[in-house]
């Protein structure tokens, strides 16, 4: 695999957005024509709790530079308490990343409500900046893969 040039590094970020809050926030950001970095690819899931650890590891090992999970604010999950489980699984995933000596900073969980189009744009742009500063996922550079 080609080693990406650090200078023109353009991160590849996967964002899991729950249908009821954050996906709606992305719609609002869209209809407000906010400028958002193109690094993020949105994957729509019905609830943030659908994002199982399997998916996160799979996409990380396939080279995602950053992974964003975003859903309704605690207490607002369309399915009652789904996002509380998301929060727990996220904490576990952070630990798994540390154990495997991967950078847990490449993983982010955010709560963004349907009304927070602004915040959606801010979160995505800030996360993109952060990942750009971190540089490419080492998997992409490693000769092991």
């Amino acid at each position: 695999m080609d080693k990406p040039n650090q200078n023109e590094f353009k991160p590849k970020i996967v964002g899991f957005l729950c249908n009821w809050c954050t996906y709606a926030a992305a719609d609002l950001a869209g209809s407000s024509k906010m400028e958002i970095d193109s690094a993020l690819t949105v994957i729509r899931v019905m609830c943030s709790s659908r994002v199982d650890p399997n998916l996160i590891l799979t996409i990380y090992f396939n080279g995602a530079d950053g992974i964003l999970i975003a859903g309704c604010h605690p207490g607002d999950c369309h399915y009652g308490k789904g996002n509380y489980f998301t929060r727990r699984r996220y904490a576990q995933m952070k630990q798994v990343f540390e154990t495997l000596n991967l950078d847990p900073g490449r993983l982010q969980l955010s709560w963004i409500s349907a009304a927070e189009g602004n915040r959606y744009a801010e979160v995505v742009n800030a996360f993109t900046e952060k990942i750009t500063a971190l540089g490419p996922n080492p998997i992409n550079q490693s000769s092991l893969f």
Partner: protein
Amino acid sequence: MKKKVGIYICQCGPNIADNVDIDKIIESVSAFNDADDLEIVAKPYGLLCSGEGKDYLKQEIEENGLTHLVIGACSPRDHNNTFIGVCKETSLNPYLYKLINIREHCAWIIHDKDKATEKAIQYIRGGLRRVLYQSELFENKLDTNPDVLVIGGGIAGIEAALSLADADRQVFLIEKTDRLGGKAATFKTVLPKQQDAVEAIQLKIQTVQDHPHIQVMLNTRLDRIIGFLGNFEAEVRSIDDAEKMTELKIGAMVVASGFSLYDASTHPDFIFSGDDEVYTALQIEQMIAEKNQVTTRSGKAPKSVAMIHCVGREEVGYCSQICCNAMIKLAARFKTQSPDTTVKVFFRDLCLPHQDDQAFYNEIKAQGVEFVRVNRIATEGSQIKFTTMDENEGSELFDMVVLAPAMIPADGTPDLATKLGISLHETGFFQEAHQAINPVATATDGIFIVGTAHGPRGIQATLLQAQAAASKIRVQLIPGEQIVPEVRVSETLEAFCMGCKTCLEVCHYGAIVFDEDKGISVVKEAVCRGCGNCVGSCPSGAIQLKHFTNPQLYQEMIEAVQ
């Protein structure tokens, strides 16, 4: 079999066309044509959601014999259902179609047209990969039962029953005591404005009893329920005669089990026994209803009355909203009974939420009712000790003490919640589906909560909720109409499930049951809402959420990291 995928890119007027190069998308995805097993038909169109657009799609699906469909357009929150509807009118299974949002996720937010086009191509490729991994799903139509079980014969249950029965629904109303009406039936007058309510409430009770569509079952409790929206079976049992069990088939339930009062005698600051002249506001209401006057235990009219607000408010942790007003109503009653009665109201905070409350309060004050704001208050029999807000201490003896204990959930609420499989709020009242946007529904489709079973409130708010729940049921269950349960639901894979029951714990809807014989978990499809939480919880990857499977999401994701 050769797959033939149609990819249609919507211009959305100028919305998409101006900001992404649609021709380039078409060109790029057409390159996937593979002589052996994949044919791509890729075309632009003006407005796909318009009447002509939908007809065009139908025609394209049929004429080209499409096996899969990808649409590049707007947010699925806008038009996913539109295009599912289109597919349903063709031979294409709607779950072999995928809407890709290149408007909100590309055209509108990536302000550089080349970059937006590049991103749109990536998204469409992801959609193409995904759709090839999707499976046909078949919607199942189920007959429904439009009848309703109402639990609790207070004003909440009565109103719900009437609103449904007047719309020709058969209603079963179970009440655990031997009479209808609940607490409100005992009130001589009701707020706001002290209207006389006895007749109006009695009339409602009579109407319920005589209604051809309402079957009232007194001294009856719920034993168990099984089923789901449109198809519940309930077993109800007579409290007097445990042998007498009735099985009811219904489509929905309204929980109207009401409230109880905080037991003031358990509070360390309120020391009294049954012989003391200490009463709850509710007991005074009952006394007025029974003999139209308030007297002490020795039968004399009290010359001095202390009224103490917010008993137990700190302990329960919330304001009961209605008690201040109810107390002011009784204070007025004491003054009417005998204008020279000394009435002192001890309060810390006053809650006067209704638009008429302030005027009523001013009027009562003008009639000589004294309001004393206290920081701390304690009683020993009818001897009151208090500290005012400016730290002055006082002690006074009264002929009668009236307490306003906090409203708490009705006795037996936790048991009822377990039987119904619905949750309780941290205060112990029934929990609604969503506090702000879905306040009378519960997490279980077909079960509604109304009145004080849901939290402290007055009669007016109670009736509004009962009417709201009744109309929700009338809309959700239409006689003779079948319902189509969600098909994008979870399923367990028998070979992988190790029977750990983790998924049973996480499902908010109780949609997963354990098959003891096989030692595995099974999803009740009609109950599952398709959130996918159980998938994330299963340690052995034994659960799959249809239409959002790992392989499907993988196809979408992988394109993002190419």
